[in-house]
C-alpha cells in the first residue's frame, strides 16, 4: 500500500514505476484486440527499455518497426537498424554490456546468421531479451512458421521460454526482463512464439494501463562489472580469452560454462512465480491420453482435446510447457503421472521437443511416448489431424473429417 510519504518514482519516459508483481498480477486490465506483433510493442512500452536494435526479416519485422515507434515516442532510449542479424546481436550485446535493458527480435535464417552471438551473450552474462518469431530455416526458402531453429538454440546457455499466444507473449516479455535480470540469473532470455500463428494473428488480449512500467534496470547489480568505467576493477576485460596465457585455464572455462547453466537453473523459482508455473495443464486431469507441447502445438492440442471429448467421448489433456530452458523436469514428471499415451505434437521435422520429453521421462514414466503428429514448413496442424492420429492408435474410424 502506498502511503502519503512514499515517493512516486517515474522512469525516463515519464511512466510511474511499479513493482513487477503489481504490473503483472495486480494492475487492472482492459481488453484490446491486436496481433502478437502489437502485443510486443505493448509489452516493450511498459518495460522501461533502454535500447533496441532491429533488422528486417519476416515475420518479426512488424514487431521491430513498432519498437522503433516507441523510440520516436520516447519510451525506448536507443534504437537503430543494424547491418545484419550478426551485427544486430553484437550491437545489442554492446548496449547490454554498457548497462542497458535491451530487447531485439528475429526469425528463422536471421537467428542462424546471428547464432555465434547467443553463446557469447550467455557467457558474458547479459540479460538481453530476444523475441524469436520462429520460421523455417531450410533451403529452399520458407518464411512460414516452423520451429526447427529452437532445437538449435537449446544449448546456447540462454533461457528459452515459449509463448502460446499474444497474451502469453505480452506477459512473458515483461516477466522475461524481471527474471533474466535477477543478479543470480542474469543470462539472456529468448521468448519464442511461432511466427504468423502468433505474430500475425489478431485476438483479444488483456493489458494493464500504459502509464505504468517496470522498474528500470540497475546494471550495478549485475554479476559482472558493467562496461561503463564507473565500477571497479578499473582493469577489466569482458570476456577474456582463457584458453592460454595461464596454466589450468581449462578448469576456468569448464567452471564458467557450468556457471552459465547454473544461472539458468537458478531462474526456476523466479520463473515459477512470474509465469505462474513453468507448465499449464488443460483438460481432464484424470485422462490417460496426454499431449505434451509448447506454443501453437499446445493451442492445437487444446482444440483436439475438445474434439476428442465432444465427438469421440475420449478424455485427453494437455501439458503446456512454458519454459524449455530451464526444462520443467519435476513439473512434467508430476503432470504425466497416470498417463498411458503421451503425444508430442510439433511444428518441425526433427521432433526436438520429443527428444527432450523422452530424456526427462526415461525411467520415470511407463507411458508410451509418441513423437507426433508433426508438421513442418509452415503447415497448419488442424485439431482434426491430431484427433486422427489419436484415433489411429485406438483403432477407431474418423467420423467428422471429410
Amino acid at each position, binding site marked *: 500500500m502506498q502511503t502519503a510519504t512514499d515517493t512516486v518514482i517515474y522512469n525516463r519516459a515519464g511512466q510511474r514505476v511499479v513493482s513487477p508483481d503489481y504490473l503483472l498480477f495486480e494492475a487492472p486490465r482492459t481488453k484490446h484486440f491486436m496481433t502478437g506483433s502489437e502485443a510486443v510493442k505493448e509489452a516493450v512500452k511498459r518495460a522501461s527499455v533502454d535500447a533496441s536494435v532491429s533488422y528486417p526479416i519476416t515475420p518479426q519485422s512488424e514487431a521491430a518497426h513498432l519498437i522503433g515507434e516507441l523510440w520516436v515516442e520516447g519510451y525506448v532510449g536507443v534504437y537503430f537498424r543494424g547491418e545484419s542479424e550478426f551485427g544486430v546481436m553484437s550491437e545489442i550485446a554492446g548496449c547490454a554490456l554498457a548497462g542497458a535493458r535491451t530487447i531485439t527480435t528475429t526469425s528463422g535464417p536471421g537467428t542462424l546468421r546471428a547464432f555465434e552471438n547467443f553463446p557469447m551473450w550467455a557467457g558474458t*552474462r547479459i540479460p538481453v531479451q530476444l523475441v524469436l518469431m520462429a520460421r523455417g530455416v531450410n533451403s529452399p526458402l520458407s518464411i512460414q512458421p516452423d520451429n526447427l531453429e529452437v532445437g538449435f538454440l537449446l544449448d546456447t546457455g540462454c533461457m528459452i521460454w515459449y509463448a502460446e499466444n499474444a497474451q502469453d507473449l505480452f506477459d512473458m516479455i515483461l516477466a522475461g526482463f524481471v527474471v533474466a535480470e*535477477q*543478479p*543470480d540469473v*542474469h543470462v539472456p532470455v529468448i521468448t519464442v512464439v511461432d511466427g504468423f500463428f502468433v505474430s500475425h494473428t489478431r485476438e483479444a488480449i488483456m493489458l494493464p494501463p500504459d502509464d505504468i512500467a517496470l522498474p528500470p534496470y540497475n546494471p550495478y*547489480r*549485475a*554479476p*559482472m*562489472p558493467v562496461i561503463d568505467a*564507473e*565500477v*571497479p*576493477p*578499473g*582493469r*577489466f*576485460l569482458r570476456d*577474456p*580469452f*582463457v584458453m592460454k*596465457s*595461464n*596454466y*589450468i*585455464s581449462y*578448469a*576456468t572455462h*569448464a*567452471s*564458467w560454462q*557450468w*556457471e552459465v*547453466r*547454473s544461472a539458468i*537453473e*537458478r531462474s*526456476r*523459482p523466479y520463473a515459477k512465480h512470474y509465469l505462474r508455473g513453468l507448465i499449464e495443464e488443460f483438460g481432464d486431469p484424470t485422462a490417460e491420453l496426454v499431449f505434451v507441447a509448447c506454443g501453437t502445438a499446445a493451442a492445437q492440442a487444446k482444440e483436439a482435446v475438445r474434439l476428442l471429448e465432444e465427438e469421440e467421448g475420449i478424455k485427453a489433456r494437455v501439458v503446456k510447457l512454458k519454459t524449455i530452458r530451464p526444462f520443467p523436469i519435476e513439473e512434467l514428471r508430476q503432470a504425466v503421472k497416470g498417463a498411458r499415451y503421451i503425444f508430442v505434437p510439433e511444428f518441425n521435422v526433427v521432433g526436438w521437443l520429443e527428444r527432450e520429453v523422452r530424456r526427462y521421462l526415461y525411467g520415470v514414466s511407463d507411458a508410451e511416448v509418441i513423437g507426433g503428429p508433426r508438421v513442418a514448413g509452415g503447415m497448419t496442424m488442424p485439431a482434426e489431424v491430431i484427433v486422427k492420429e489419436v484415433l489411429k492408435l485406438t483403432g477407431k474410424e474418423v467420423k467428422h473429417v471429410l
Partner: protein
Amino acid sequence: MATLGPSGFSPYPVAVYEGILNPPPGKALMFNEIVDEEVAMREAAKAMLTRPNPTIFPGPQVLYAWNEEAKEKARLVKKMAEVLGAKIIPMYDYRPKYPKINPAVEINPNHPNLTIWHNKIKACIFVGVHCHYANVALKIIRAETDCFTIAMCGMAGHEDAMITLRDQHVEEMEKFIKIAEEVKKELGK
C-alpha cells in the same frame, strides 16, 4: 598438494545440479540446508576460528573506494580479519593473470585453488567479489580443495559455497563481527 573436495576434480557436478538453490531473502544456506542467518553466521565464525589458515578474500567491490558503502565495508573487512585472526588476500581484479600469480599474496578467480593450496587455507570468506567470478571461483574451490568456503554476498548468494549469506551490507557485516566476537569468547580464544 591438492586434496580433492566433494565434487572431485571437475567443477561438475555443481551445487544447483545437486538440487541446491540460493536461500530466499532473509535466510542463509548452510551446505544444502536453508537456515536462519544467525545460525549460519555462528557456524561461519566457528569455521574461521577453528580451521587452519583462515583467510578473507575481498574483491574489487570492497577493495576500491568507489562509493561510501565500499569505504565502510573495507573498514569492516579489516575488523573482521582482526576478530577472526584471519589473513587478507585480495582478489583485486579478474583477469587470467600472465605469466603466473604470486599465490602468497593474491587470489584470482580463474585459478583460486592455487592460492588455497599454496597457503593451506582451510576456511575462507569471499566478500565484495562480483557474483559471476565468485561463482566460477567457488566451483573450482569446491571441486579441487578441502577449503571451507563462506560467501558474504550483497545479492542473492552463492550456492557453491558451503555457507552462503545473502544481502550482506554494512549492517549485516557488523552483525557478523559481533557474532564472531561471541563465538570467539565461547571458544575461549
